[in-house]
């Protein structure tokens, strides 16, 4: 009341005047600032500059051979050289943290199985915004809320998998609860707690399965693998009966190799994670990184990548042979993003998962 009186008596104070002036200036400049940021985020990279910058360094958690094959296609199409390093999220993040601390980063582009990680990095100002030309081909669920920080380069669906040579179809599990059957004791495989897909599985299934499901599953001594390739390999060799969650591209690869494998899609749904791509803000090869992202998310790049790997594209205009129609599947995707990103939720998962897999 006193303040109001003072205002009436003295008019605007210097501070109020400055604030009002700044607000006015910001509001006048905002469209320009926004459009400038947008213009920067959409500015076309230069191929010549990319070549001069040197090879783009791609960090990823995918199968190394697939990424190498794709990089070959990328370099052939664009002329921009690229190298890769396979780092699962658990390996990549500590390395990245250490590199940010030291002010030296070695990666340019990051392909990961954990969109939460890229979203966290975006919030810390560690992701570069670049809006590729084809961004509209990706639905809102498949890209960062402010487009250009990260976009889904494939959808990693995770059904159960088994080999008909070692498990009869009628005996195979049909539901998630079937995994609790003691007949599968020591014969179910999952990826370990370092895999983003394992976190995705736990995150979406914990609310649709009984609360004690993972504790009870632990009684069946499930085995932890560091990659879905190893799970698929042991299934084909008969050393593992059931892949509890196997990345669907392993199924495509097995079918291509004429292996008698089957997938199980329980009615309740299958866990699924978006595999996003983003550019680090500290990239030493900004032109090359943008050209790589542009190509990977283009129709040609998406077909090339998903065909090499055998996975689902987030673009509806891409279909890959041998994969069941994605529209027929009930995919359980992490939707509560703020919750998904919480460190305490991840710690809870790591503790549960490690206990379940005997670590």
């Amino acid at each position, binding site marked *: 009341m006193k303040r109001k009186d003072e205002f009436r008596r003295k008019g605007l104070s210097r501070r109020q005047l400055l604030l009002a002036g700044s607000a006015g200036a910001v509001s006048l400049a905002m469209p320009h600032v926004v459009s400038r940021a947008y213009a920067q985020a959409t500015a076309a990279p230069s191929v010549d500059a990319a070549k001069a910058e040197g090879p783009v360094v791609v960090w990823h958690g995918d199968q190394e*051979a697939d990424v190498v094959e794709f990089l070959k296609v990328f370099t052939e199409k664009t002329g921009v050289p690229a190298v890769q390093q396979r780092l699962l999220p658990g390996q990549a993040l500590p390395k990245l943290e250490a590199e940010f601390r030291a002010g030296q980063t070695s990666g340019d582009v990051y392909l990961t199985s954990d969109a939460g990680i890229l979203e966290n990095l975006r919030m810390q100002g560690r992701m570069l915004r670049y809006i590729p030309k084809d961004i509209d081909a990706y639905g809102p669920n498949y890209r960062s809320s402010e487009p250009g920080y990260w976009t889904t380069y494939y959808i990693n669906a995770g059904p159960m998998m088994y080999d008909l040579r070692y498990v009869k179809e009628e005996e195979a599990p049909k539901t998630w609860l079937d995994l609790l059957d003691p007949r599968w004791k020591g014969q179910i495989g999952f990826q370990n707690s*370092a895999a983003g897909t394992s976190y995705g599985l736990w995150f979406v299934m914990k609310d649709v399965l009984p609360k004690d499901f993972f504790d009870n599953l632990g009684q069946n001594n499930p085995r932890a693998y*560091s990659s879905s390739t190893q799970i698929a390999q042991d299934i084909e060799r008969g050393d593992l009966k059931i892949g509890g969650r196997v990345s669907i591209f392993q199924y495509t690869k097995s079918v291509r190799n004429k292996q008698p494998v089957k997938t199980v899609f329980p009615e309740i749904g299958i866990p699924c994670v978006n595999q996003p791509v983003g550019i680090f803000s500290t990239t030493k090869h900004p032109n090359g990184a943008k050209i790589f992202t542009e190509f990977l998310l283009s129709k040609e790049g998406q077909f090339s990548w998903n065909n090499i790997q055998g996975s689902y594209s987030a673009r509806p205009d891409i279909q890959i042979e041998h994969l069941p129609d994605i529209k027929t599947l009930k995919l359980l995707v992490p939707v509560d993003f703020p919750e998904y990103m919480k460190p305490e939720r991840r710690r809870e998962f790591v503790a549960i998962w490690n206990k379940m897999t005997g670590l």
Partner: protein
Amino acid sequence: MSVIADSSTERALARTYSFNVRPDVWIPLVLLIGALGFPLFLILTSAFNAGDPEAFPATQYGLDNFVKLSGHLDWIKNTLIVAGGGTALGITIGIVLAWIIHRTTMPGRKLFELLIAIPYPLGPLVGALAWSQLGAPRDGLINRFFTAVSGIDTHLINVYTPLGIIFVEAIFEAPVAVLIIGAAMQRMDPALEECSSIFGSGKLRTAWKVTLPLMLPAVLSAALFMFTSMIGSFAIPTMLGTSSRFYVSTNAMYVLLQGYPPNYPLAAALGLVLIAMTAIAVWLVQRVLRGRSYAVISGKNYRPRQVDMGWVTWILLAISLLYVLLSLILPMGTLILASFQTGNQINFNFPTWTLRNYIYVMFDFPTTQQAIVNSLMLGVGTGTLGVIFATFIAIATHRSRSDGRRLLEQVTMLPQAFPRLIFAVGFLWMILALPLRLYGTLIAVLLAYVIVFLPLAYRGMSGVVVQIDKALEEAARISGANAARIARTITLPLLRPGLLATWALLFMVSVREISASLFLSGPNTQVLGPAIFSFWDSGGMPRVSALAVVQAFIILIALTVVRSMANRSVKA
């Protein structure tokens, strides 16, 4: 009288409280303390970090991580089971084979000496990879063969068990025991055994009652080396144990470091426990050996009598053949077979076999090309730098009159107590904290290799330096030769066989290295160990087998070249 007594007391006191530390001792000492102390300090601070596990440096300190570790005593128990069991089996193999090769008249001893040495440089990664295809419960070649022959649909062996892990560890570390115990056996004074025979003891009783006790220092030295290696062993437990829920300290530590969020503090606390376990083992061995005579392995050149074991010779030959079969022929044969396949299962349908996997890993896959080149460069670099550094240290510890020699020796041997996985993490933190731009360079990997393999290099060079009689150099000096000429014409020629052997050993162990490289190699510094590990993780069995065969081929070529050079050097 009292004046004389006082002055001698003063001199004694002056000797006690004055240090005569010369540059040949303090320079390497300071360098080593810095290179080891800083990573150790970082590991220590992380282990006692009781606050945010990702905070660096820690903001809160406490014993929380050690308390948490008490809930995972199975990791430590399993580590002791594997290291203890593996050492016991490996030493048994080592004693038997060393005795067969060096103390009996078994035919083909020279050939077996060479064949038995090969599995060590091939390394645990190759061993684990091959045995996962030989001894897998369902699809392993041995079990398939057993089922085909017997008609019984069950497995004969399962390598994915603690016993399987102990077995693979033992057969791939046993060559070191053969080398260390064999060297002692070759220099043993035969008079003691002859006495035993004169007093009526049989050959086996003499071997048990006389030869073996005389070998105790060498046996314990080999056991200590194997035990410390197995405590820090990474590839075999990870490849054979993890998927069967068997965790030792290293594969547990790897998951802790790999997981997101990573649990650095718990991994560092576990690393400290491993370092303490190794230190206790070293202390125990020193305590057992204290006061014992090493006369049987001195510089004197005895030629022990070789025993004709009669018909038992054929049993000894069978034992030697069995070892070579299990550690070399079957593993390499399996990897070669797997490398020709198109799928994960080994088939014997020859027309479907392919060389495509070799073309892929050698020509189409840039990572492996880079890894091969980098590993070769690092092998040469580690061999050269390691030999130079170790030679200087060995000369300083054995020839210098400086104080601090014993401390220098102890600090040089310290990396043996560090599991390489945890050392690499500390070393990575150190190079990131230093103002030098070492991160992501081959120089960083090279420095780490030189440090972790320094005990091995020192052990090799120390044995050579101690055998060279100083009188030769002194004679040259009296004859008017300067230091450079003495080094060129006396010291270096005498050191050459040892230099070559140590260089070759360092080259081979660095080419096969994996656990330190996992954390230090980057996109432009790929090396073979992590490349094979990554291929095992995500590339499928045929390709990883092809790459392992290529690595083995490189190591065998190096072994052959150096052996022929060493032979020529000895003849010259």
